[in-house]
């Protein structure tokens, strides 16, 4: 709970005292803040000029755009007929998200245990695992989708694979952090009793990390449902494809309905995850 004190702020009661003492510090701090504000405008200006971003028109257009969006994308009565085509796609997207997260979690966990600094097998493994995690995580999902599309063609499985590969990289990194942050005491204790490596993993590492692991998997499922839209547009599968079809054929009301169903699913998923997290502690 105790957040590290990042600035010399007076603790309880000593507010006046420490304020007086740190007046000079705050003058310096003000300068730093000023420099940051300048840097902020410079970077924004340069970036804006580079991509020809018009701040004024953005400020005017975006609110207007939101209003336009709310009216155009509002699901109409006639769009409800399309629920029949939306629901199966939504279902398959949810299933693919869960499956890709869970299967990726199994591989990620094994890799993370082997590569962790505290319970890993040591040597170059720690570096190799980190490199694998970083590569899989940081290759754009767009690139995965495009490459997979070459050989696996347009099918649900292609979308699943693209989600699986990014989840694998992401979860490996999260699990590595979880395991490394874990207290090493019980592992040392079991080592001292003469337990073998595999015994230590099953009897200590898994029980100690299981809540975080489940928590990350739930988060990954939620993220994958959202990312499945992007992957779906690229690979022509799932809810993303359905949205894309109606969007491109200017049936904005149906596209809006699709959007609403996604929002409902994601929020439900988030709520359920939070509930589960509390229960499994």
């Amino acid at each position, binding site marked *: *709970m105790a*957040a*590290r004190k*990042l*600035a010399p*702020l*007076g603790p*309880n*009661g000593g*507010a006046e005292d420490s304020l007086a003492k740190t007046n000079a510090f705050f003058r310096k*701090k003000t300068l730093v*803040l000023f420099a940051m504000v300048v840097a902020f405008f410079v*970077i*924004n200006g340069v*970036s*804006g000029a*580079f*991509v*020809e*971003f018009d701040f004024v028109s953005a400020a005017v*257009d*975006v609110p*207007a*755009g939101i209003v336009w*969006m709310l009216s*155009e994308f509002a699901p109409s009565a006639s769009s409800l007929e399309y629920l029949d085509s939306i629901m199966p796609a939504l279902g*398959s997207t949810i299933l*693919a998200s*869960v*499956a890709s997260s*869970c299967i990726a979690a199994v591989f990620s966990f094994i890799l993370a245990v082997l590569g962790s600094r505290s319970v890993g097998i040591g040597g170059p493994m720690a570096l190799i695992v980190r490199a694998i995690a*970083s590569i899989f*995580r*940081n*290759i*754009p999902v*767009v*690139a995965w989708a495009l*490459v*997979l*599309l*070459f*050989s696996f*063609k347009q099918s*649900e*499985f*292609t979308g699943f694979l693209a989600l699986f590969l990014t989840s694998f990289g992401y979860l490996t990194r999260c699990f590595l952090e979880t395991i490394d942050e874990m207290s090493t005491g019980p592992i040392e204790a079991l080592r001292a009793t003469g337990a073998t490596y595999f015994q230590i993993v099953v009897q200590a590492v898994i029980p100690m990390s299981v809540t975080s692991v*489940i928590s990350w998997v739930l988060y990954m499922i939620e993220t994958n449902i*959202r990312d499945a*839209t*992007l992957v779906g*547009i690229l690979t022509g599968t799932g809810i993303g494809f359905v949205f894309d079809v109606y*969007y491109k054929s200017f049936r904005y009301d149906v596209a809006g309905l699709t*959007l609403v169903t*996604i*929002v409902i699913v*994601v929020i439900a998923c*988030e709520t359920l995850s939070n509930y589960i997290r509390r*229960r*499994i502690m």
Partner: protein
Amino acid sequence: MSEAGNSPARRTRSGKLRVHVMHKADAALWVVVGALVAVTVFAMVIMDYGKVNFFDACVAALGDFWEMMSTPGLAGHFTAEDVIVGLFESLALAALTTFIGAVIAFVFGLFAAVNLSNKAASNVIKILMSIFRAVPTILWVLVFSVAIGLGPEAAVAGLLFHSIAYLVKAYSEAFEEIDPGTLEALRASGARWWQIVFQAVIPAKTNELLSWTFIRFEINFVNAVAVGAVAGAGGIGYQLFLAGSFYLNLHEVGLIVYLCLAVAVVLEIIATQLRKRFIVQQ
């Protein structure tokens, strides 16, 4: 805790000593694991695997992946300059999104922090943010590109929503960690709300806020590449999309992937260091 524990040594039905008892949390855990496994198996069984031969496709995909990663290069569709400019365009989109998002999120964050605001305002903002977050980024961008026309404004506007939702959560949680004693002392000395914010909240949390902002910049770059590809919002993502699905050239895809990878890895390393140094979790 009370001295009332469980009675010693229970036995199983077969008369053996019982060592494992199922606590509530364990039971919940097994239910969750069981459900996840069941859904996964069900999903894999009913999944549409397409018409391709699985084994052949795997071999082909690995071959393509290898070709992409081992022989990156230009093939005449883009010049080196195009790609570099594209990369900087994506970076610029990410920077604009991050900065504008940070300003908006800072204001929302103050009102979302329960110790600086009130319960009602905090809840309203939190609900609004979870709706922002629930709509996939790519859909925000697609919607805005018809609402205000294709261009950097639509891309930034679309990327903004998730950026704001993320930063509001990060900022407000940082604010909520502020020592209540400090706030009490300042309130007791008659400081106004904005004085408290500028004299206590910002100075104490500057590093943490900046760290979160940078971490979001990393995520925004990844997102900028993705929306560039799908929504045609420009940048290196769009070039990646052209190379992959229009020119069908794996060498160019490889080159662009390496560029994105390099930037993302550098950003990731910086973000990890910032997180370690300035953000103390729990």
